[in-house]
């Protein structure tokens, strides 16, 4: 079973509402603040991208459905600040708190470091000696779309592609493995592939059986066929 965020293929959502490029980058002032507070807090170095994704996925299904995009961000940020011990629930309530430790405050992102910090990024490619088991053209089957080590843990194998047959169409070297990295189990890099699935293998009623859905999947999500 997966979580509420894993919505690919779900029925019941209405039409998409295009903006044709006319929407402001930040529709409301607080959207911009929410993005900036979240990005800046990340520079404290107390969590990685996979942990922050998992924190959003961990919102209750009711909150996740109700919250807009940036509400998810700031609510998950609050949860993560508490879970990592940077802020207490009492401080969240009172909005008063002692100054953080010197080692933490030294990491605070300063304005003059924003450009270099954002342009540096966080590449996930890692050089490993792990054998790449699959080649382009190989048929593969995905395993069950759940975190293997932790019940309810983070994974990037969507439910709609669970236990489905596809074909390897590309390989990208080894990348940090989110299922481990989101849970303090290190980077555990693994070979990453692009796998093509025919629409007809994913959906009972495909729009066009020849259409393809392409997913980037780690080696341990796959089994040989």
């Amino acid at each position, binding site marked *: 079973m997966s979580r509420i965020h894993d919505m690919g293929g779900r029925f019941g*959502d209405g039409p998409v509402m295009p903006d044709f*490029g006319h929407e402001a980058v930040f529709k409301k002032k607080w959207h911009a*603040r929410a993005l900036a507070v979240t990005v800046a*807090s990340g520079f404290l170095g107390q969590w990685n991208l996979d942990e922050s994704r998992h924190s959003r996925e*961990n919102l209750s299904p009711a909150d996740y459905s109700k919250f807009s995009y940036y509400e998810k961000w700031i609510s998950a940020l609050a949860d993560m600040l508490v879970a990592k011990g940077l802020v207490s629930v009492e401080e969240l309530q009172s909005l008063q708190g002692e100054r953080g430790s010197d080692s933490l405050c030294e990491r605070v*992102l300063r304005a003059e470091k924003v450009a270099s910090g954002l342009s540096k990024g966080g590449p996930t490619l890692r050089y490993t000696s792990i054998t790449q088991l699959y080649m382009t053209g190989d048929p593969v089957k995905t395993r069950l779309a759940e975190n293997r080590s932790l019940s309810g843990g983070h994974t990037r194998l969507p439910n*709609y592609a669970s236990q489905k047959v596809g074909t390897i169409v590309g390989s990208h070297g080894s990348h940090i493995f989110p299922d481990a990295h989101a849970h303090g189990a290190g980077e555990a890099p693994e070979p990453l592939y692009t796998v093509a699935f025919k629409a007809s293998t994913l959906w009972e009623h495909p729009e066009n059986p*020849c259409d393809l859905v392409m997913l980037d999947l780690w080696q341990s999500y796959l089994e040989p066929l």
Partner: protein
Amino acid sequence: MPHDSNDHTHAHSVLPSDPALRVNALETLLMRKGLIDLNALDAIIDTYQNKIGPQNGAMVVARAWSDSAFCNSLFSDTTKTVADLGFYGRQGEHIVALQNTDKIHNIVVCTLCSCYPWPLLGIPPTWYKSDAYRARAVREPRKVLAEFGVALLNDTSVRVWDSTAELRYLVIPQRPEGTEGWSELQLAELVTRDSMIGTGFPKDAQ
């Protein structure tokens, strides 16, 4: 089997429910604790408001249309090729270019969150982050495309790219007819954001 222990710690519920007040509360507390610098927040907002946006991707597409050596390089090592133009960074560490043709139409989504090539396209629009797009683009891309006014021939194959890892995709749309001899700057004017996501076409040459 251990269970995810964060499931029952929803500390955010003590914050104000109004989202603007909620952000303000967090910002205030983090500032009081010395954990954020307000000038840095302004600089982050300025970056995504004014410096990084679809004009970056449009420059890449326009050059790919007009410079065949660049185009070859773009498809053999996209990340390096766009980084050489200065487009690299957060949410754009590993970029892959996808070529649209008469026979193949590529469209990009992230069903699990809202992954998007920030250094090339900026912050994603609301519809890209919406449940409707995330849920439907993989199952019924042609209906979704029709909602954008994009009609495809039946013998055009749709390839939907679900951004499940840290690879970020940039669609290179087909060059509009009647643009022979145009400069890169003129061509870039025709490249819409949606044409680089796959939910639109470039503007017609007028």
